[in-house]
């Protein structure tokens, strides 16, 4: 052996170079997406939720069908009614989606990161020539694609049932409107997906992360309405009962309620699926000027109407993903 004992006195530069890393951060991204999607689609957890959403879709559409069949000839947007009409005991299908989609998204993502730690696969995977970026984005995209796949299948199913049950094909505008609705639904799911990933990065226990995600979901589904009116009453109180005061309070309430992804989603769907909707919430006489009440808005106008809500959904998704990204990059990788 040529080596002799090393003494800890080698003189060499102390050099830390953290700036600029070589190689694409997306190396291996599609390998991750492929693996994760295969996992989701074959997992029992997902299959249960798929069956649930399928039953909901069939039930809701069937119930609506009983109702609208008589009015087929008069209604130019009969297919959109399949999504929006509530009929006892069924709420509208969009109502179902607004609370089922978060559930699916959380179920997909709550153990995305901490699951790799608890299975002790994280350090093994990150020892492969990929960056953490690819792992995180790959998991997110796999979730989003899975969600898209499920929702698109449901969309096709509803359209198919509509064609069979109503005996006529949807017109171009109905297809366009319901596709935009599909996109909004996917990004609504994206928010909850990203939120689930944030929690799965923060909490090392998957059960804790799932619970945290479900708490937020419950909070927005059940309690946000109460919180909103409470806050609005505190922030803009009605002291003298002037109409301006009441209006201000209503506006405050609406602004606060829009912090909830549920509100954004419901408004976005309402705007695009119901052409008669020309404003959300308080309708002022000035907004009605020159409008024929009850006349449907053209598609472009409806898109313009729900545009802020749609971009809000997308922005929130991106922000939450960025948060998960920052948290994950800082995390210590130890098996």
């Amino acid at each position, binding site marked *: 052996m040529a080596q002799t004992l*090393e003494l800890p006195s080698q003189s*060499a530069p102390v050099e830390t170079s953290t700036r600029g*890393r070589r190689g694409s951060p997306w190396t291996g991204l599609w390998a*991750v997406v492929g*693996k994760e999607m295969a996992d989701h689609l074959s997992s029992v957890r997902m299959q249960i939720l798929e069956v649930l959403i399928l039953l909901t879709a069939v039930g809701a559409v069937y119930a609506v069908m009983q109702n609208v069949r008589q009015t087929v000839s008069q209604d130019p947007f009969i297919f959109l009614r399949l999504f929006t009409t509530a009929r006892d005991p069924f709420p509208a299908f969009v109502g179902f989606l607004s609370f089922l989609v978060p559930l699916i998204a959380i179920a997909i993502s709550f153990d995305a990161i901490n699951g790799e730690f608890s299975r002790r696969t994280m350090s*093994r995977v990150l020892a492969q*020539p990929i960056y953490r970026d690819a792992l995180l984005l790959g998991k997110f995209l796999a979730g989003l694609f899975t969600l898209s796949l499920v929702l698109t299948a449901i969309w096709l199913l509803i359209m198919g049932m509509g064609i069979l049950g109503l005996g006529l094909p949807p017109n171009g505008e109905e297809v366009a409107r319901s596709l935009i609705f599909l996109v909004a639904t996917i990004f609504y799911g994206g928010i909850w997906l990203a939120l689930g990933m944030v929690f799965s990065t923060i909490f090392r226990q998957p059960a804790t992360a799932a619970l945290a995600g479900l708490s937020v979901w419950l909070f927005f589904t059940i309690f946000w309405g109460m919180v909103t009116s409470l806050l609005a009453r505190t922030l803009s109180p009605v002291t003298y009962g002037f109409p301006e005061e009441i209006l201000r309070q209503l506006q405050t309430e609406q602004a606060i309620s829009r912090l909830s992804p549920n509100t954004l989603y419901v408004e976005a769907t309402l705007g695009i699926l119901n052409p008669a909707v020309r404003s959300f919430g308080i309708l002022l006489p000035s907004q009605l000027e020159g409008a024929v009440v009850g006349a449907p808005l053209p598609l472009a106008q409806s898109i313009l109407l729900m545009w802020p809500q749609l971009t809000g959904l997308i922005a929130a998704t991106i922000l939450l993903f960025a948060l998960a990204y920052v948290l994950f990059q800082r995390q210590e990788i130890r098996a």
Partner: protein
Amino acid sequence: MVEVSTKSAAPPQAATEAVLQAVNLTKRYGAAVAVDNLNLTVARGEVFGLLGPNGAGKTTTILMLLGLTEPTSGMVRVLGLDPARDPLAVKARVGYLPDAVGFYDELSARDNLSYIARLNGLPRATAQQRIRTAIDRMGLSEVIDRPVGTFSRGMRQRLGVAELLLKEPEIIIMDEPTLGLDPEAAQGFLRLIRDLKHDGITILLSSHLLHQVQAVCDRVGLFSHGRMMISGTVAELAQRILGGGYRIVVEASGDQRAIKSALLALPGVKKIEAAEREQFVIVGDRDLRADAASAVVGVGGGLVGLDVEAPSLDEIYATYFKEATNGANA
């Protein structure tokens, strides 16, 4: 500066090319120092053992070598590359077997490995063929399509090595590879390490079970509280720390005190470690059996038993740290 750059720029010289290098490497977690000014060089083809008790900083060192944890200060070079700047190139050529290696339990051994192959960007055909070869070599061909959830600890460990073989690495880093294996499996694993060395792979392994790995390591570094206390071949360490480090066990009847002083007076005896109930343990710099026997007989004692133990890492380790701690206390 000059020394380092000439080293990495020089053409590979079979035995002396440094493939792993750490210079004044330090990692702090808040106020706690996990790795303290580590200097380490591993030459191509070597098996280097990073030895130390739990919490010594072995895993932290390994993570920094792989670029999975950023050093607080200091320099790391792996195959001449900086793992913090060039992690993809480093990780494509270095295989890492973490301690307590985990797999996706619901996937088969084959599927687990194909995921890793895809992450490495191996073409499908190459991947399939390499997976087959690696699995066969690790003796797992019978269970290749079984879910990994059904595997024993030893099988998982071998699957972990099969995964390393996939990317045909130049360096393999293993963290506590024999941890949790029964003695027989551990021995099998050490044989495997020798095979890998034979293939020309440089190996860095960490362990707190010193006696287990001393047989396979060309050189070892003793690690404690984030510091590399000493490094070299086992023989060198023995020479340096134990001054030869031969332990001779003498069992003798007769005047115990006279025997003890006679033994102590022998040239080459460093000390008497234990003296109890007609048994003495002498530490000497060579095999002193003959001298000890005549010393016992010389003072009228009866020789009952005589045995010698060659130096072992455990002793070196225990002795060194006892001395180091005493020195620090003094």
